């Protein structure tokens, strides 16, 4: 199985961005999803929220313009766009819980056919904590999970039933992997798009789940 047809990280993020519309608000999880802030076309006029208390994240600061008090939820220095605002964590998560965030993009360890997501804990491994992930998946209007299709050990992350501790139940709307785009619906994964040259067989998803 060759991986030469697989989408790159940037390509995956482009696919994520293709779901956005002008004026939408977007929350980005830690890791790959933060790439969205850097690759977003300006004409989309997206407002990026970071749950530590800012709406209007723009990307990375120019050298010398970084501020220790201006960070995203991944604790990375950021810059802001015009029209940005700062607020406390109760309002920030109220914005999320209240359904005012149009898209939430976050990483995943497993997504199952019922839209369940596991992405915060592997029993026996290091404990990191769920941070804001559980609030985000229950609050955002559309939850997009972006992750590699396979674990490092080679098993698919799109499964019939999550085996890891859950982040949320029935919360995932769209999954973007390096092999394609999928929607968990009615106990199956609907294939929205496959990376060109990738066959359904390569997905390693049991045929009764597709």
């Amino acid at each position, binding site marked *: 199985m060759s991986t030469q047809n697989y989408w790159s990280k940037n390509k995956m993020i482009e696919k994520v961005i293709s779901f956005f519309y002008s004026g939408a608000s977007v929350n980005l999880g830690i890791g790959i999803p933060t790439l969205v802030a850097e690759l977003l076309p300006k004409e989309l006029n997206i407002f990026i929220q970071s749950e530590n208390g800012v709406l209007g994240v723009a990307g*990375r600061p120019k050298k010398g313009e970084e*501020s*220790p008090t*201006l960070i995203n939820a991944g604790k990375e220095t950021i810059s802001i766009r015009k029209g940005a605002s700062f607020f406390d964590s*109760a309002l920030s998560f109220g914005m999320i*819980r209240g359904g005012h965030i149009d898209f939430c993009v976050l990483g995943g360890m497993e997504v199952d056919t019922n839209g369940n997501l596991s992405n915060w804990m592997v029993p026996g491994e290091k404990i990191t904590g*769920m941070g804001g992930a*559980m*609030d985000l998946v229950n609050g955002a209007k559309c939850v997009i999970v972006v992750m590699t299709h396979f674990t490092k050990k080679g098993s698919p992350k799109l499964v019939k039933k999550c085996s890891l501790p859950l982040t949320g139940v029935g919360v995932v709307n769209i999954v973007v992997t390096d092999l394609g785009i999928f929607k968990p619906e009615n106990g199956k994964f609907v294939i929205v798009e496959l990376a060109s040259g990738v066959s359904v067989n390569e997905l390693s998803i049991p045929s009764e789940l597709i």
Partner: protein
Amino acid sequence: MDYSKVFTDPKSAVADIKSNSTLMSGGFGLCGIPENCIDALSEMEITNLTVISNNIGNSGRGLVKLLISKKIKKAICTYVGGNPDLEKQILSNEIEVELIPQGTFSERIRAAGLGIRGFYTPTGFGTSVADGKEIKIFDKACLLELPLGADFAIIKAEKGDSYGNLWFKETARAFSPLMAMAAKITIVEVEELVEVGEIKPEDVHLPGIFVQRIFLGKNYKNDIEFLKIEE
């Protein structure tokens, strides 16, 4: 008789924090943390603190100082990644860690400060967070979450006046105003101690009624956890 909340130094401001207290500490990661209060506390002979903070410091900094000196019995937080000192203490059972989803964490602290006795949120339903909690069905199944208060809060603001009115810079606000509401005694350190009235009344981020003590902080490190620069 004049009434003032202004203290001259961190040591006197935190002097009555005792062993077995519950302590809230503001900041997100290393951003907006009360460095002076943490330093003063780390030199005190206290133990068995229950610490409520989003993170318990990081890479040897922030609240890790209280961790290393074995002052913390229990940590209530939302994210503990990137903290080898904490991991060591978890593995050796020296510390108990309770993890709470960040939105529920924020709202529980607000509830404690603002007299809400409990609230229902969908966050955590169907996960281990729901274990032992009352569930009620609204448009979605929700968990009953209870207020989270503390004996003391230590927080940092950019500007503050002698009544305790505060103003926070950029993303350094986060949990700090909520913690000020939720603690019996709130101790604030500021980068700048301004005249009463200097913060425009409309733009006070936290009214001074929630603050009991305030002092001018010194020698801030204001560490950046992950420096990312435009390439």
